[in-house]
């Protein structure tokens, strides 16, 4: 069974260690501007949302790529860019509704998560587990449990006189 990047914004503490670790792993430098993952923060209301490529089943980036440089890695299931083919037209950046692809501020190339060959560095560094890399069955169960928790809270409120 394939694994997925599972995002849980409620657990994110906004520390952005994922960004730093990502840039250090991929680019060998610390520079959040060149990270493939980003935490969008609304500081004054305390909202922290991880933004990263979701590796869609039907990737829009793949559809719009005029040189067919975007493919699925058979081993990890990651949607990856073949930089030998990529011409840097940035149509993937333009069309991805989840901001999963960006532009490298130094090289001008496309920046996109490749799941680090099956061991995402951001996940390794995310102690609060706002980013997880789990099998789909596990992802489903986690969502269900969370929904059930909310339902149970609601039930308790309704049943308490």
């Amino acid at each position, binding site marked *: 069974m394939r694994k997925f990047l599972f995002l849980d914004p409620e657990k994110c*503490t906004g520390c952005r*260690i994922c960004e*730093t670790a990502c840039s250090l792993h991929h680019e060998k*430098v610390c520079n959040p*501007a060149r990270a493939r993952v980003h935490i969008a923060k609304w500081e004054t209301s305390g909202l922290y949302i991880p933004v990263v490529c979701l590796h869609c089943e039907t990737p829009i980036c793949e559809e719009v790529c005029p040189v067919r440089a975007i493919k699925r890695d058979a081993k990890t299931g990651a949607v990856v860019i073949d930089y030998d083919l990529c011409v840097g037209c940035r149509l993937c950046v333009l069309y991805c509704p989840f901001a999963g692809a960006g532009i490298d501020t130094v090289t001008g190339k496309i920046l996109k998560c490749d799941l680090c060959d099956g061991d995402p560095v951001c996940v390794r560094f995310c*102690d609060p587990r706002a980013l997880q890399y789990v099998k789909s069955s596990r992802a489903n169960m986690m969502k269900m449990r969370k929904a059930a928790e909310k339902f149970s809270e609601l039930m308790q409120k309704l049943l308490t006189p």
Partner: protein
Amino acid sequence: MVWNRRIAYVDLSTRKVVQSDIPKTMRQLYLGGRGIDMYLLYNHVKPKVDPLSSENTLFIGIGLLGGIPCLGASRCDIAARSPLTGAVGDSNIGGFFGPELRFAGFDHLVITGKSKEPAYIWVQDREIEVKDATHLWGKDTIETQTVIRQDHGDDDVKSLVIGVAGENMVRFANVRTGLKNSAGRTGMGCVMGSKNLKAVAARGTMDLEFAKPERLLDYCKEMNDMIIGTRWAKAQSRWGTMIIFSNTNTTGLIRTKNFQLNRLEDGRDLEPENIDRYSIGTSGCYGCIVHCRHRYVLEEGPYAPIFAEGPEYTSLGAFGTMVNCKKMETILVANHLVNKYGIDTLETGGLIAWAMELYEKGIINDKMTGGLKLNWGNEEAVFELIRQIAAREGFGNVLANGFRDAIAKIGNNSAYYAIQVKGMSNLHSDERPTPSFALGIATSTRGSDHLRSRPAVDMYGLPEEVLQELYEGPVSSDYTSYDGKSRMIWWQELLYAVTDSIGTCKFQTVFCAVHAPKWNEFSKLIQYATDMRFTKTQLMQIGERIYTLERMFNLREGFTRKDDRLPERYFKEPTPIGFPIAKGKTIDREKFEAMLDEYYSLHGWNKNGVPTKKTLTKLGLNKEPTHLI
């Protein structure tokens, strides 16, 4: 690598900016952050300069390892001659500003002169500009940051700002970034205000390169595992520093009603668990997995709605135990107010608690307070005094210059009730049962302060073999004992000086856990990041160099052994309540003096606390000031 990070000299009077490289020698001698800032302070500020004059200089510096993904490597140091104490002014701040400044190409800023009009410094990818801040003047610390972001159309701009308290030159005004992070102590916000400097804003997208990036990445992960493996860090990541309260209040180690009691009876509402009623989750500084503060919401009450972050253990004391307020909500409101206005939570609480005791004793009255009923537990009076201090109105203005000035104005034995050292308020911890803590606040180079040395591990009663190995000498495992505690304080002072200079978080070294990262781990991190190699002994010597230079600054400003003191009440009034271990305790004057002697000798200072020639030569300080940068 860090070598291409620069130092910039910004003259606010002429708006001229000069950039230069930071010589590698400086790194070898002082690392960065607090270390280099202390070198700059000693070299650039002339003796006896009026802290509020344009001749005082403000230094901002990020630690050598700032920006790496471990141990909260976000820490930024702000220094100047303190307008509160006249001694070393130095305060450390986390959050996201430090790394952003580094990504923008700079490690150190030296800010001189005074702007005619309100101004702010804008730093972006190697460029620096002094910009007009008229539209920001009068705004609170949160709004100021928002407006700067709007001005630049960039949500990722990070700023150090002052609030109205800094503008009004309240002597303990702080510097703030984000919702909660504050360079709280020694009045660095006041120095910014005196220069008409409202903010320093940064945005950077430049690579930070390393000697061995792969090994650094793996080692960072190892460091994070190491720190989160301690129970202390785990507890902190759930409740923040508030977790300390559960232990210290029960035992009887917390100043209550200023200094009358050492435990808050009926203080159950201040237990850390109660933050859950208001919390929507925790929040971390840059690259920190400990995330020791809560994001909280207050939906009801006269100040609602409030969305804020915190509170710290410090605020539980400042606006709880010390003023005898017993509700978590009081703390949450007060924490929000001091942060919004930009005044130090600890100094503010310490001063208000003192004023309440003076009011009780009849040393001040309604006429002096302008009708404010400063009764114990009067939260409305606390909120109003916070506002008055920040605005310099009414009785607040009497307190706004800090203890020394307020004592002079009030007179009448008020000094006896003031719980302060070198003009700066003590934390709300009651150090009478803990000689190590007491020595630490007395010797701290920046006035009464726990973050220069506090050896929280002293509280654990660890086996003496463990302490012997850690401190490399005999240390008693009984926290009420005086034996070996000088060694403990000396050692922690060196460790924290180095921690502040590499820019990692003090909570992620030997603060509350013996097996937390320290010398050898720091040494490896520095090696992987920069290729510089330091042995443990060399790092300790750097710590000694920094601490001794701070001592030299204070000596130059007229501070001597007699200033390494404790308030008289520590010697005269025994702790009235608490567990048997904490009850009936005073500090023994003779033993305290003996600790001080031993402490000086460990530093290589003479009986008067003056570094000996031999020490200065050994540390290479005998020719200071050397004006290398």
